[in-house]
């Protein structure tokens, strides 16, 4: 097991899917986003947010609503189609789309025909060049038609919300999905030619034991998952109101959570997976993310750890975040206001932050530390963090060799905390994040 130093994990830290983080966003007029789009060059990636699920799980902090309100879903999709036109018209002709990701919510909460129409619209509006398609899927709403459509579109990567195979944990989080459902989904996806299947798993769930976790990891491997993302359940009912339903007395304590994260890491490491960042794993030798990890090409973005080399990500849909070298911009979160603005042909961005040269420098260090476990750090910045880095170096969790700061293998669970030392925003605004492990 990793060495446990609870005193170093006391301060909750961000996940750094961007830097600055979404918590540091401020009001941002949409015209800044417009300018960033108009100045974009080269290859871009698209993310489409489908904030609907057939059933809402108790634990989920995503911006989602129930899909059963047909009218609302239809008017959302109409607005999304309109946003696709608005945004595409602003991009210079030379920009090429090389990656298209669908996330949510559950993109398969919409009908397969609706998904096809979105692909059709993207094909018409953007300059799409043999893109890599990826999609998040809810196994509970997976169908043969969906598999047929994924095959026709050429979706290569899919991510399944599995979370746990333990029935008592599934009940506790309001996500009951028998194993047969996962097996059927994997079969359909393989038949459809999906070559990279990710399983999202969780530790720290109510009532979950180490044995439960190991059993889930074992089943995940046997089912042939190409990638695994192992997240700690963040119990923050003061932020995610729907979590109030979950019985907090039954949650594993901090030490148990640490042991679970450690066991998870050890399991995948010894069963043919390459660790990617601090919570992703990819099958060695076959999955492109594993190849990226071994050659230092992993990047951090809103979807986690990725092999996407593009510097520009355009987010479409309510609450979606776009990322440019000099700007982070978030679409209107409120679904009603999003539908109204986007449906009217307006850009809906209303929050975000400009990334200053200092932000970019610090952001690059944070990204490299999280993705590669090491980063070059300039003398000035190293001097700034030195006192706060000391406890980690003293305990053998990190070391400095000239201008290189490296996190030791044992220091992995502390990677986010070490990275946060370079986050100038945290020093001034202590906010509530989930704990690092």
């Amino acid at each position, binding site marked *: 097991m990793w060495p446990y130093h609870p005193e170093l994990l006391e301060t909750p830290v961000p996940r750094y899917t961007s830097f600055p983080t979404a918590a540091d966003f401020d009001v941002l007029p949409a015209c800044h986003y417009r300018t960033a789009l108009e100045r974009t060059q080269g290859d871009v990636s698209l993310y489409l947010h489908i904030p609907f699920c057939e059933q809402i799980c108790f634990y989920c902090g995503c911006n989602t609503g129930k899909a059963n309100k047909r009218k609302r879903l239809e008017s959302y999709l*109409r607005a999304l189609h309109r946003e696709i036109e608005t945004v595409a018209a602003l991009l210079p002709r030379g920009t090429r789309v090389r990656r298209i990701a669908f996330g949510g919510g559950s993109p398969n909460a919409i*009908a397969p025909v609706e998904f*096809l*129409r979105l692909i*059709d*619209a993207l*094909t*018409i509006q953007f300059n799409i060049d043999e893109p890599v398609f990826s999609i998040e899927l809810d196994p509970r709403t997976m169908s043969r038609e969906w598999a047929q459509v994924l095959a026709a*579109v050429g979706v290569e990567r899919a991510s399944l919300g599995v979370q746990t195979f333990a029935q008592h944990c599934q009940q506790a989080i309001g996500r009951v999905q028998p194993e047969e459902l996962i097996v059927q989904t994997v079969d359909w996806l393989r038949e459809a030619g999906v070559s990279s299947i990710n399983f999202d798993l969780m530790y720290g769930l109510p009532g979950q034991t180490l044995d439960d976790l190991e059993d889930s990891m074992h089943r995940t491997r046997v089912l042939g998952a190409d990638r695994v993302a192992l997240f700690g359940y963040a119990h923050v009912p003061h932020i995610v109101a729907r979590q109030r339903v979950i019985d907090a007395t039954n949650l594993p304590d901090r030490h148990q959570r640490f042991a679970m994260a450690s066991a998870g890491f050890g399991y995948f490491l010894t069963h043919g997976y390459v660790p990617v960042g601090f919570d992703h794993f990819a099958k060695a030798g076959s999955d492109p993310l594993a190849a990226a990890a071994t050659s230092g090409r992993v990047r951090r973005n809103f979807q986690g750890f990725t092999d996407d080399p593009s510097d520009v990500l355009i987010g479409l849909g309510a609450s979606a975040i776009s990322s440019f070298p000099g700007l982070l911009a978030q679409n209107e979160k409120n679904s009603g206001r999003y539908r109204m603005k986007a449906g009217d042909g307006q850009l809906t961005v209303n929050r975000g932050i400009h990334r200053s040269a200092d932000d970019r420098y610090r952001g690059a260090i944070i990204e490299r530390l999280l993705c590669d476990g090491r980063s070059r750090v300039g003398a000035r910045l190293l001097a700034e963090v030195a006192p706060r880095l000391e406890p980690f170096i003293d305990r053998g969790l990190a070391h400095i060799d000239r201008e290189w700061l490296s996190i030791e293998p044992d220091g992995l669970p502390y990677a986010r905390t070490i990275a946060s030392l370079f986050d100038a925003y945290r020093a001034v605004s202590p906010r509530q994040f989930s704990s690092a492990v």
Partner: protein
Amino acid sequence: MNEPFLSRTANFCDACTVRNRAICGDLDNEEIVALNAIGQRRHLSAGENLLWEGDDAVVVANVVEGMLKLSTSTADGKEQILGLAFPADFIGRPFGHSTPYSVEALTDVLVCVFRRADFDKFAREHPRLEHKLLERTLSELDRTRKWMLLLGRMTAEQRVATFLLDLSVRFPVEEEVGTQPGAFALRLSRGQIADVLGLTIETVSREFTKLKKAGVVSLPNRREVAIEDREALEDLAS
């Protein structure tokens, strides 16, 4: 929908030449009668529009005869061709609110038109049709992808070759009465072909001449073409 050019014939489905290939192909007789009752046949002359982009999606249609052009206008006001519709193709967006493209008849056209609300209701009540709809949406995506590739990445030679192959497949020669064996009608003028392929008339004419000189096609007259060497044409298209 009581305009004079609409005609409602009791059993036009019986004599329909595309019925086996069209979206209604899998329906049984009873269902066909029901669908027939909500459909109307409509003739369009070349140049007439069936749908306008951005309109409320009032109708959907099966193409029975002729060719139509699907297009949208880009942000800078230019016309962007999205593809061609041939007999047995389905156009319009069931379960959609607005029409994402304009549809214009390139030749004289016969279509079988349904009010969208009627069609949606029928599709909901007949799962077989709903499944067909998925297939049609898949072929619509194929058409879009193909056309975007054609306009965005193909040379003039590839575009013309692709167009001729398409035409030969969509209007099988056996249904044709050409002036020489294997010949089929081009249906479109050089100017129309240039328009849909994003080329100039001169380029289209030049490509036709090149293909003829190479013995890949023969051109019995200005309105007909015969493919002499299909393999060579396929090579040129790819």
